[in-house]
């Protein structure tokens, strides 16, 4: 989806890594541990409204890390959720890392499953492993990885535990060397029929620039916020073509 010509990823053309996750999963701590940037680690709603960006080097390549707002979902249409959703869908990071709280897996799986429906290049990072151990919680990451079809890495970002492994897994996926098979919920026959029908027209409109099945699902759900976002992007595209006479991409990369 993101063909790159350079074999190595320099400062000018870094891999783009998005961090998604519920609030209070230590996502910002992980961001700081990866990038060395100091960021607010306070705790109030909407703390990270405009996403923060940082960078790191790993094995000779440059990576840009985007810290998305902490949300429980991407579908309730708050400003935070729209920012996170639009980044994953339209900016298409090379890898989306979903950060989960090891002590609250059930609550955190809602967002993880949503992201798995939206993107192929996903890594699950189960953070706060130190707290989970204290509570006697054991997590079988191999079994989770098998069931969900994407790599799962356990970390304790504040102790820097597991960060090397996470960076290695991110590198492998960024280079397209990791085959994933993200878990996609199968809905009722009636719904699946409608999804297929819509999927076709979505594909004929947007090609492979958007995840057609996911867009079809959101349209069936009547997601007005996504529809508005799609309209905006199409409008932007028209203006671009009009001003520059080129028709390269429907979704110009924003500065």
């Amino acid at each position, binding site marked *: 989806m993101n063909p790159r010509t350079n074999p190595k990823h320099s400062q000018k053309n870094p891999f783009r890594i998005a961090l998604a996750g519920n609030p209070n999963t230590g996502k910002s701590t992980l961001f700081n541990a990866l990038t060395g940037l100091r960021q607010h680690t306070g705790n109030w709603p909407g703390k990270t409204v405009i996403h923060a960006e940082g960078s790191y080097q790993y094995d000779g390549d440059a990576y840009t890390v985007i810290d998305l707002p902490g949300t*429980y979902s991407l*579908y*309730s249409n708050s400003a935070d959720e729209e920012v996170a959703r639009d980044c994953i869908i339209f900016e298409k990071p090379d890898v989306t890392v979903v950060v989960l709280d090891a002590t*609250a897996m059930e*609550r955190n799986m809602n967002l993880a499953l949503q992201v798995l429906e939206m993107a192929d290049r996903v890594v699950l990072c189960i953070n706060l492993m130190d707290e989970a151990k204290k509570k006697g919680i054991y997590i079988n990451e191999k079994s989770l990885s098998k069931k969900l079809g994407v790599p799962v890495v356990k970390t304790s970002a504040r102790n820097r535990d597991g960060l090397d492994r996470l960076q290695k897994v991110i590198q492998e996926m960024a280079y397209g060397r990791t085959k994933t098979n993200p878990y996609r919920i199968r809905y009722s026959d009636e719904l699946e029929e409608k999804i297929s029908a819509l999927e076709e027209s979505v594909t004929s409109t947007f090609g492979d620039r958007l995840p057609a099945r996911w867009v079809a699902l959101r349209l069936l759900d009547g997601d007005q916020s996504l529809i508005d976002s799609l309209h905006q992007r199409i409008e932007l595209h028209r203006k671009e073509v009009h001003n520059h006479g080129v028709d390269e991409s429907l979704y110009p990369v924003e500065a």
Partner: protein
Amino acid sequence: MSQSSIIPLTEGLPGQRIRIHHMTLEGTMRRRLLDLGFVPGSEVKVLQRSPLGDPVAFRVIHTTIALRKEESSQIFGEIIGGEYHESTH
């Protein structure tokens, strides 16, 4: 259980555990409540009422969430247990 045992969450008493059966909410608020864990089949516990009776605090997937009548009256479930008092909450 018979259909008659299905009650709106507004009728739950502090200490009672209720299994969610269905919701009549629509749109964004429905989505929001699903995201918070008010999912058919899941269990919620009535924690306490505020002094004026509204909102009411519920425990769902290890998190406390307060709902107003507008929402809780549109979430239905069956009582599966009660009189259990968690001292920490």
